[in-house]
């Protein structure tokens, strides 16, 4: 039976979808709006939605009080660095699991995934102590290492899924054509997996950018990224909603813009292999 999509049905679905969409987006929208209010308006009850004195004052104060650009650069270095390092480790790892699987490959994959179930706070103290002894506290290097490690299971899983889609015969053809293992990975596997690698890269930049637990606990000032920048506005001396919102907006803006422009790539990446 052909499905009869009635106008009422369409309308209902549209309304429901928009309601859910707005409900999800609303906190972000509210943060952005609040960032343009004065502190008084920000806590006014009832709150004003669009009719208020729009001001850029919060942004100026935030930039003045804490160096936004330095935090921004830290975020870029930490998320970019951990993603690149992660890919360098994950590509050969995923290659071996996808193309030369052993009896235990599935177990290794499950074990890696299981590490993501562990509450990070459970290992905070040992890692903190190790970092302290190695002089990695409040360094970008330290954060790159820790973020690489926590995101590695996801990077490997994603790449593994992509690589599995690549016919093994093509790699065998490369081997027959005289390619060494290195050439095989560089000239054949990686270019063929570019869409997959790109979406893995994007997703990991986003994950690393948004990571707050380790970045807050292992940094103080020098290596502090944007997450620490936001957190510094929820201070015990009292909440400054408008300034907090301005800081948040500035922190999420870059990743929001990047995500917006790469959404097609991301969706394709995350559903890769699901449909042929």
């Amino acid at each position, binding site marked *: 039976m052909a499905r009869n999509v009635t106008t009422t049905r369409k309308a209902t679905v549209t309304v429901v979808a928009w309601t859910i969409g707005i409900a999800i987006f609303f906190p972000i929208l509210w943060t952005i709006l609040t960032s343009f209010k004065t502190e008084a308006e920000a806590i006014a009850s009832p709150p004003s939605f669009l009719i208020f004195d729009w001001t850029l004052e919060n942004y100026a104060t935030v930039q003045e009080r804490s160096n936004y650009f330095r935090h921004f650069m830290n975020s870029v270095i930490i998320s970019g660095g951990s993603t690149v390092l992660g890919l360098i480790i994950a590509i050969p790892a995923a290659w071996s699991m996808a193309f030369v699987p052993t009896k235990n490959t599935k177990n290794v994959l499950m074990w890696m995934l299981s590490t993501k179930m562990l509450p990070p706070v459970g290992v905070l103290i040992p890692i903190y102590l190790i970092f302290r002894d190695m002089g990695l506290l409040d360094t970008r290097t330290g954060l790159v290492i820790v973020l690489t490690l926590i995101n590695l299971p996801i990077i490997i899983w994603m790449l593994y899924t992509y690589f599995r889609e690549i016919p093994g*015969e093509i790699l065998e053809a*490369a081997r027959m054509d005289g390619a060494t293992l290195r050439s095989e990975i560089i*000239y054949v596997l990686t270019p063929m997996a570019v869409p997959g690698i790109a979406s893995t890269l994007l997703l990991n930049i986003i994950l690393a950018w948004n990571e707050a637990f380790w970045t807050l606990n292992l940094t103080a000032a020098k290596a502090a990224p944007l997450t620490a920048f936001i957190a510094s506005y929820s201070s015990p001396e009292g909440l400054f909603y408008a300034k907090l919102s301005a800081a948040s907006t500035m922190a999420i803006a870059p990743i929001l813009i990047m995500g917006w422009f790469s959404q097609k790539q991301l969706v394709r990446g995350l559903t890769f292999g699901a449909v042929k």
Partner: protein
Amino acid sequence: MGQITLNKVSKSFGEVEVIPPLDLTIEDGEFVVFVGPSGCGKSTLLRLIAGLEDITSGHVDIDGANATNVPPAKRGLAMVFQSYALYPHMSVKKNIAFPLRMAKLGKAEQDAKVKAAADVLNLTDYLERKPGQLSGGQRQRVAIGRAIVREPAAFLFDEPLSNLDAALRVNMRLEISELHQTLKTTMIYVTHDQVEAMTMADKIVVLQAGVIEQVGSPMELYHAPRNRFVAGFIGSPKMNFVEGAEAAKHSAHAIGFRPEHVAISAENGLWAGTVGVSEHLGSDTFLHVQTDLSSVPLTVRAPGEVEMHYGDKVFLTPDMDKLHRFDAKGLRIA
């Protein structure tokens, strides 16, 4: 040079032995076809020669040197895969040049060799295209081009024509045979299609369950199959077998005769039967005749214009000189 020798080569996957130890010599310049039903181990055997699978025991020699532990890249063999296995992100030109690039040849030399191969294979107009923009036959040519430029000691073909349509398959069959005549390089060709085996091979290796049933020229296999399996596998349509009293008359457990070696007549003959389904191919007609000799109908080749129809009573007379006799174990009785 391209002489390949397998000495007591065997292959097991875990506990399962897919190829029991076997010996085989492939002479330089020979066109050898491995043929057998699906799952008989013919592709595995080819992959053992290529080095894509590790040998469980025994050794493979290429031109007299033990190559068992030599990686595939260093064996000097080129392979054409069933799926073509072209690099989708590279142009035709880059695909063909890839082995040369891996061998670190100069750019000018690469271009010259690619051009020469493209000329031979009629690919000159397609050099800038990606594999995705080519037809099946063209892709197959690119795969062959990539193999030729290496000037390998031997070519390995793994069912290269099975993804092509029937007409193209015949063309490519001729092209590959032509290529062998020109290059005179050893070629090992795997197929499940006995027609390809018969038409292309200098030497056919018939495999079943990882065991070599017979090695010989197409005509040797056709005229003197070593056992019932080979007799039934080589030749199209397949050989008819009759067991029981009729076979006992020839002091055999079973007798076999090919459809082309039986005379059919409406008036008289040795065995009576009834015409069942007939297949008209134009030049020939294959009649399936039901007799009392066996439960399955016997296949008979008749001229294209034969006037025999479903349900007609007919008589069959096999050519006694071309009768094959087999014992209870299925082996040929000389």
